[in-house]
């Protein structure tokens, strides 16, 4: 099967299982009548799927850059559309991140969602299917179908269970992302007409004309920049993040935003290497603007969720900065940053969800001064906050240091501004942490976290420390793929 795909040698189609198992579980939920049963089933489905995806990690071969666990089936032969799945170093951890988030999102919604529980869990599981599918698909059409199908449950999560401005936020989210996607579709068709198939690995590293690469890159970049979101396409993000229910915000921040940077790594660089080189300085400028701008906006927020949402803009700015530094360190840093941001920001959104359930407010002042009232909560919150501004010893530090090394090697000015941005991050996160811990003196009757809430924050805390102190296994797994990418880039963009 081609020379890009190592076929699956396990005795069951593991990628298809990881993709479609949640979907089957979701359909199963539809026939249930009891809310409690629905929650338990959804949780079990999520956990089971995570266990399946662990096999991916165990059997993953880090010594090759080829796509692994490959599956191939004919789908629409008239248009040469096939069902091709495969993962490599770029996607393995993103899939694991998705599969572990799903059961945790079910846990965090246990009491927060009171009406239409069945539909909610249905949406969560369908989302999981689509998101894993995006990372596994090696056929453009398959990819595009998952990519768009993901929007529907996300839209419903915001539109049905969202906050007061849910109508505005959900429609803005959908139209914004769809606007980008149609250009992606046009680019996909253009590539199909040149290569004769919708096969993604086939489309990589070919000698397209620069003019072709130029336009395809632009079409790709609009779609992915909206998803990341890069400045100036970020305006949908605060609205959607703020209005979505906790589980929705977590999925948005932890996985959906990664789709954009994943797109840059998987499509822009390999398919249009010359154009990537040509556009890299512009992308670096936009990334730096996002970092600085996001930082300043965060400083003036009074709404916890909005603050974390804008901090995502800055963090994802680091990721795109790493990608367009076009260095190995930059790539590795960007991929680690994607994971770290997924974990840290996801955890912070969980924290906001926990306190929102108690005080029904997202305002920083209403939730201030919890240090003595909720010690466990503040402990977790503190860990994730310092991780968010890349305190040494936490996960984000590793990612950002890689990115900064890559950036300084490439462009000193951009590196300087990125450091300024990192300082800004410390400023706004510490300001938030100070308020939450000591901001008010008055005693209020708020219960501390219960076992369930601790249970879904512990995995994140473990990851934050593990990644911060011992990142070698992660770097080792992704290294080969990224080394291959950078060498090919150098060959194809002289």
């Amino acid at each position, binding site marked *: 099967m081609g020379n890009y795909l190592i076929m699956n040698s396990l005795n069951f189609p593991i990628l298809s299982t990881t993709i479609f198992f949640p979907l089957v579980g979701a359909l199963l939920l539809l026939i249930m009548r009891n809310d409690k049963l629905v929650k338990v089933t959804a949780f079990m489905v999520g956990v089971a799927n995570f266990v399946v995806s662990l096999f991916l990690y165990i059997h993953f071969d880090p010594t090759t850059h080829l796509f692994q666990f490959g599956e191939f089936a004919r789908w629409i032969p008239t*248009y040469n559309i096939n069902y091709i799945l495969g993962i490599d170093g770029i996607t393995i951890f993103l899939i694991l991140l998705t599969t572990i988030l799903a059961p945790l999102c079910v846990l965090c919604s246990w009491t927060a969602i009171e009406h239409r529980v069945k539909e909610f869990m249905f949406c969560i599981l369908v989302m999981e299917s689509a998101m894993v599918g995006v990372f596994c698909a090696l056929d453009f059409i398959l990819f595009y179908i998952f990519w768009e199908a993901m929007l529907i449950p996300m839209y419903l999560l915001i539109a049905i269970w969202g906050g007061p401005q849910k109508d505005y936020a959900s429609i803005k989210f959908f139209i914004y992302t769809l606007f980008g996607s149609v250009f992606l579709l046009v680019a996909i068709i253009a590539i199909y007409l040149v290569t004769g198939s919708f096969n993604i690995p086939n489309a990589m590293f070919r000698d397209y004309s620069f003019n072709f690469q130029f336009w395809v890159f632009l079409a790709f970049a609009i779609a992915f920049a909206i998803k990341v979101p890069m400045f100036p396409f970020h305006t949908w993000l605060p609205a959607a993040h703020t209005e979505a229910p906790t589980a929705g915000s977590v999925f948005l921040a932890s996985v959906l935003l990664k789709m954009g940077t994943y797109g840059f790594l998987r499509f822009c660089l390999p398919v249009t290497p010359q154009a990537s080189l040509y556009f890299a300085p512009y992308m670096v400028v936009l990334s730096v603007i996002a970092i600085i701008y996001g930082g300043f906006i965060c400083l003036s927020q009074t709404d916890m969720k909005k603050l974390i949402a804008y901090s995502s803009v800055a963090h994802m700015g680091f990721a795109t900065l790493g990608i367009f530094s076009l260095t190995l360190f930059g790539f590795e840093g960007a991929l680690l940053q994607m994971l770290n941001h997924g974990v840290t920001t996801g955890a912070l959104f969980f924290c906001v969800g926990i306190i929102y359930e108690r005080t029904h407010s997202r305002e920083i002042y209403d939730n201030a001064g919890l240090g003595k009232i909720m010690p466990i909560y503040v402990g977790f919150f503190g860990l994730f906050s310092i991780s968010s501004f890349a305190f040494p010893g936490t996960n984000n530090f590793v990612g950002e240091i890689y990115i900064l090394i890559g950036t300084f090697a490439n462009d000193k000015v951009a590196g300087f501004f990125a450091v300024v941005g990192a300082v800004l991050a410390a400023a706004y996160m510490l300001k938030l942490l100070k308020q939450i811990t000591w901001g008010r003196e008055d005693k209020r009757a708020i219960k501390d976290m219960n076992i369930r809430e601790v249970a879904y924050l512990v995995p994140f805390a473990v990851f934050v420390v593990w990644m911060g102190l011992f990142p070698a296994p992660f770097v080792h797994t992704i290294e080969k793929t990224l080394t291959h990418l950078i060498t090919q880039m150098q060959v194809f963009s002289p």
Partner: protein
Amino acid sequence: MRGFIMTILPELFMLFFSFVFLFLSIGRRRADVFKWAKVLSLLGLVVTLVSINGRGNLFYGAYKVDLFSQIFKALIVYGFVFVIFMLDRKNEIEEDYHAEYFMFLGFSTLGLMMLVSSVELISIAISLEISSYSLYVIVPLRKGQTRIQLEASMKYLFFGAISTGIMIYGMSYLYGMTHSTFLANIMFVLPKFLVQPIGILAIVLTLTGFFFKLSLFPFHFWAPDIYEGASNTTTTFIATVPKIAAAALLIRIGTLASAADPAFVTILMVLAGLSMTFGNLVGLVQKDIKRLLAYSGIAHAGYVMIGILAMSRDGNAAAIYYMAVYLFMNLGCFYVVLLLSKSGENISLNDLSGLAKRAPLLAFTLAVSAFSLAGIPPTGGFTGKLFLFTSAFKAGYLPIVIVGAVNTVISIVYYFNLLSLSYSKEPVATESIRLSFHEKALCYVLIFLVLYLGLMPFGLTQLFSAAV
């Protein structure tokens, strides 16, 4: 003789169907017309599907039965059967006219089936008129006589008559230039006239009749008013089935015009672009769902033209595919409208508020259909648009692809309005809507078909490209 009958069995069966109801309308016993209509229409579907492999050139070559025509006949009968099954609530049409209503539906379907097989100008004109005149009659048949449906029927009649007149005028030019009424001969001779304005004028005037049926800009004026004025079931029929036949004939003419003339393609491209943009922009401000769907139909006429103007095998197959999707997704939307309306009245957008709470299945049917109309995967609308865009891009018409893609985004706004009303608004009327088993089943079938066309067009794409 036997072979002759077998080839046109579907048409003969529709004729039989209409005669049955003609006699039922004369007789006094009318209790069971619905049951008869359902049974007979299903039988018609079976007959059409069985004769899908029929081949033949009848009536001295004026009537061509091939895979292309049989596929379209099958689609037309599918639409017909669905409309008859949807009519179940008996709240749309005056009881006295039920038998007549079925008769006219049958005649109109017969005309459309004949249209997709006609390859000669006079048979085309006759088939088109058979189908149109039946529709002129059923537009005013709506419970509770008000001026609105009479106005609609008059408008439909006048617009229809004028467009037929223009079409026949164009045909006279074609005949004058080429000395033949057979499409094959005309298209053989026509290319040398296409360099002159008269050639372009003749063919554009001739196509007007089909553009009218398809409600392509600028021949769309009838659509919103007629949709609003006619009963919900009649609108469902008019919005779906005749458009399939019109698209079929446009594709047929496209396949015959082997040498695509740039000027001709440019005209089609401009019409397609304007139709999409106009339909979608005006759709944004509609309050009545049927009017909204009328404008959405105008936009979709433009999408289908993208496939036809590619003048390639791929493009025509894509257009057929899109018509199939178009049929089912529109049936889905209209069925929700039909079930929401208690006594056959029109439904405004506000009536959708909180639909998800009152009737989750209806909301879901509407959601799937609207997503499909908007072209979001994994629904059929996406797969259809993908094929259309790919074929036009392949033929080198990138501008129209970009116009189409941007239009997809514009149209999202109003399709989404339907969804956000039904999912995130609180209901005004709180009582839930009860659906019978039959109605639920029909909803599930439509949802299934739209998703099926989106995800698994396995054999269909091959079948359709074999047909053109």
